[in-house]
């Protein structure tokens, strides 16, 4: 186990180091698919320069990262490259621990469906491979997108949650929320998982349930309060609030990216803006409730779903966000036999990834295509992502069904039955 992991790490670091040194690095760090206005390294540099000059980094309209990031890089700026590599490596560390989940939880009536221990053994390696060798992650790392840091915080949160450490889980979740607001929705799966570990029933009439929720929320909100105040004292002003969170929620920067926002909001009449802003933003938060109710027994899958939903519907998505939830896919390798559209989806994702730069070139440089071409691909990319996620969701539910009713369903008259989703 250790040897392949080390090998994998060496390969991953080598690939990144080579790309950092090559002329491609500059090109990659300019790509709109890889960096967003929030995570672009160029903007972080600008913020640092402003900070060094004694000006508030938020005084212009360039820098939108959180204060803690800027102070982090204030000390690390010379080692930025190394930092980004370390991020990836840290990310890997926690994955090691993940395989403990899910084992021996099901009645042994459907042996076929339960993963063998051997397979479980390979899961962390596969997860690490999916994350570290994913071209999306590599691109995002080489572009020095701060998205890598966000991913690290989120993955640390997942690690702490899976290990059952309530306090650390709350702290890391709070850090992630502080970074980009949207991980707020991960609160629900985290609580569900921790309650499951502590054998607290999810029952609205039980005191123990409410006691735990209050406890967790207290830790979460408390550390959020500390972070916000810390930022305030570091900068001495509340400038960062509108500049970071206002920027994320009200989407003033309409640079094209792989998300759904820019085209709509560029086309829209100004007085509808607020309404559609709410409609678009609510997408991220809205699915939490139905998903939490449906998946309350399976919080880890819920985390995966939430991450995917965030990366699809967030206001400035990049491929780094996509890579984060894609790293979870090997965890659900036992669902593969129930997936229906995986071929279609992977073809579409592949084609879209190749077409992004091509259509960008035609639009911006050659001038022969226009924004509609690019947005068409963006739409297709997001539809494929949604199909992927819903396919996994369906497969998960179907597996649940088979776990309770047996794998080979029979109709009442004895003929073979098929499941139909209507």
């Amino acid at each position, binding site marked *: 186990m250790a040897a392949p992991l080390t090998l994998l790490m060496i390969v991953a670091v080598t690939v990144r180091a080579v790309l950092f040194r090559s002329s491609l690095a500059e090109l990659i760090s300019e790509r709109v698919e890889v960096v967003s206005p929030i995570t672009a390294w160029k903007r972080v540099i600008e913020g640092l320069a402003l900070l060094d000059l004694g000006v508030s980094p938020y005084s212009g309209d360039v820098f939108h990262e959180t204060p803690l990031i800027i102070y982090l890089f204030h000390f690390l700026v010379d080692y930025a490259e190394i930092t980004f590599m370390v991020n990836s490596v840290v990310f890997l560390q926690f994955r090691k621990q993940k395989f403990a989940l899910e084992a021996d939880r099901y009645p042994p009536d459907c042996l076929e469906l339960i993963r063998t221990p*051997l397979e479980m053994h390979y899961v962390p390696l596969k997860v690490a491979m999916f994350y570290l060798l994913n071209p999306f992650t590599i691109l995002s790392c080489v572009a020095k997108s701060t998205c890598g840091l966000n991913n690290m915080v989120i993955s640390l949160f997942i690690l702490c949650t899976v290990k059952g450490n309530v306090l650390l889980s709350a702290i890391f979740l709070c850090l992630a929320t502080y970074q980009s607001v949207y991980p707020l929705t991960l609160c629900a799966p985290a609580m569900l998982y921790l309650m499951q570990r502590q054998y607290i029933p999810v029952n609205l009439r039980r005191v123990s349930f409410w006691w735990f929720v209050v406890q967790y929320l207290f830790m979460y909100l408390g550390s959020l309060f500390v972070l916000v105040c810390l930022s305030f004292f570091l900068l001495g002003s509340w400038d960062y609030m509108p500049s970071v969170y206002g920027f994320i929620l009200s989407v003033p920067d309409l640079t094209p990216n792989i998300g759904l926002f820019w085209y709509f909001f560029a086309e829209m009449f100004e007085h509808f803006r607020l309404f559609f802003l709410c409609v678009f933003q609510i997408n991220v938060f809205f699915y939490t409730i139905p998903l939490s109710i449906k998946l309350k027994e399976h919080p880890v899958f819920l985390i995966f779903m939430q991450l995917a939903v965030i990366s699809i519907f967030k206001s400035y998505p990049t491929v780094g966000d996509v890579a984060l939830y894609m790293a979870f896919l090997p965890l659900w390798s036992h669902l593969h*036999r129930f997936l229906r*559209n995986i071929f279609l989806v992977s*073809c579409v994702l*592949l084609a879209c990834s190749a077409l992004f730069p091509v259509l960008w070139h*035609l639009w911006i440089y050659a001038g022969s295509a226009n924004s509609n071409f690019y947005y068409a691909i963006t739409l297709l990319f997001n539809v494929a992502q949604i199909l992927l996620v819903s396919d996994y969701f369906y497969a998960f539910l179907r597996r649940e069904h088979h776990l309770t009713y047996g794998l080979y369903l029979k109709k009442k008259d004895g003929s073979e039955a098929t499941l139909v989703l209507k």
Partner: protein
Amino acid sequence: MGLLSDPNRRQALIKLLTRLNAPICFVCYFAGVAWFMGLAFEPFTLRTYMSENAMGSTMVEERFPAGERALATGREFAAHKKKVGGMPVDWLVKTMQARGLEVFTQSFSRTLPFPDENTERYVVKGTNVYGILRAPRAPRTEALVLSAPCTPGDNNNQAVGLLLGLAHYFRNQVYWAKDIIFLVNEHDLIGMQAWLEGYHHTNVTGMDWSPLQGRGGSIQAALSLELSSDVVTSLDIVLEGLNGQLPNLDLANLFYAFCQKIGVLCTIQGKLQRNDWDSASGYNHAVQTMMLMVMKQASGRPWGDHGLFLRYHIEAATVKGVNSFRHYKTDATTIGRLLEGMYRKLNNLLERLHQSYFFYLLPSLSHFVSIGYYMPAFGLLAVILLLRALDLWVQLSAQPSRTEDGVAGTEQSNPGVLSVLTPLVISHLTGAALYMLPVRFQEVAVEHFPVSETEAVVLTAIAVYTAGLALPHNTHRLLSGEGTEMGWRVLKLVALLYLAVLLGCTAVINFSLGFILALTLVPAAAYVTPHVPKALSAFFLVALSPACTLLFSVFFFQELQEMPVSFQDGWLLYLSVIAQGMLDHYLYGSLVFPLVALLVYPCWLLFWNILFWK
């Protein structure tokens, strides 16, 4: 979504697609070809129309009177050119200044990676001369360019003469709202490249040039003029630029509209417009015109000096005077009036030309095929790849369920990954060798073999290409285990998807190239398995490889131009086309050579590998 969620209907659809896979693929292929051939049929095409408001409704009157004087200037230019033995820079500067332009020169030099035997160039040194007519009516933020190349020999003197004549006439008019830049460039495309790079402060090809001393506004449109006789019978417009880029269709419409108005015969691809679309010969004519455009576009090279403007988002075309044996002649005054009219309309533009199409094919100047009409032809070919991939996917996902046990599954999948990765890596390395070696090793080759540098480069390329064919046997020696039945299926699946994405991207950028590659590669990709007769299939596969595609294209192009060549000449032409393709890449940044060497050829090698799978 019913289709996606209802398992019964899905099953039925998939069963249908896998059972009827081969017939559907055949139908798609022929439908694709038929669709493409149908594009030239006039009722299926759209009439061209002027989309740009600023150029449509405004009337302009052409008054250029001084054709004869322009020709006299051209003769003077010819005399000076002969005297100096190259570009008469001083004379040009003096003459342009006398016409009231701000005149500047730019010198440039470039050493070619290997000698160009067609134009006998190796170390190129030259000077561009350009004069700017400042716009009297508006802030000088925009500009138009009129250029004429200074070519060695007796060519193109009249074009320079007419350019100077127009400069003289334009100077005295007050209505110009855009700067007009009159450019005489030496060494045609190389000079143009140097000038454009200088104008836009970029250096993409590593050329040495002196910075420009004077600039106009941002260039909106450009015309390049080629005129080698005092009278012409017709004017030909050339649109195909670098990497198959085309200018906005409105520029062609503008040219066509003025030719109609002034009564000049106009051609495209050297073919006159015909009205008998319903006869077989009329249709044939349209097909020929369109095919010529497709072949030229697919080559990815600039077919006139205008070709390099397109990279900078400048709409540009080359206007060529053709003097044939027809008795209907047009004099220089008329051509001058035509250009005057075009420039006045361009002068009226309020924004860049963007209303009309950028993706089109022209079966004649009055009709065009837009992207929505021609893309299905490519789509029908590309869908074959996806169908085959789907078929393989179904086979692959059906297999493991027969031997269902987790342990064996993981054990088997590991060599699977390796057996796919090895051919992928090796064929890409071969592709990289094909891209790098020819130019790197020309000196070594010249030392050891009795060939010239150019021959050395071309022959090395062919040698590397052929050496790649020996690959499958060596790949297998590297692999520890035997290739499994599943192995080649996975490899083919990967290769099919790879090819589909590759061709799709190519077709979006350069439809013609994508279509021609699809036409030959798709049947090969769809057909090949390890279980077909080896020798015959190998021959079939080689005949459909990119290099042979190029060879056929050379003959076909000659045939279309009605200049058929013997096999011997064709082969020599083929060699020179390869050299040209590489030079286009190194000099102007054409992407066809790297595309073929680094991506298409390795992809084809994967299929070659599958054929020899053991």
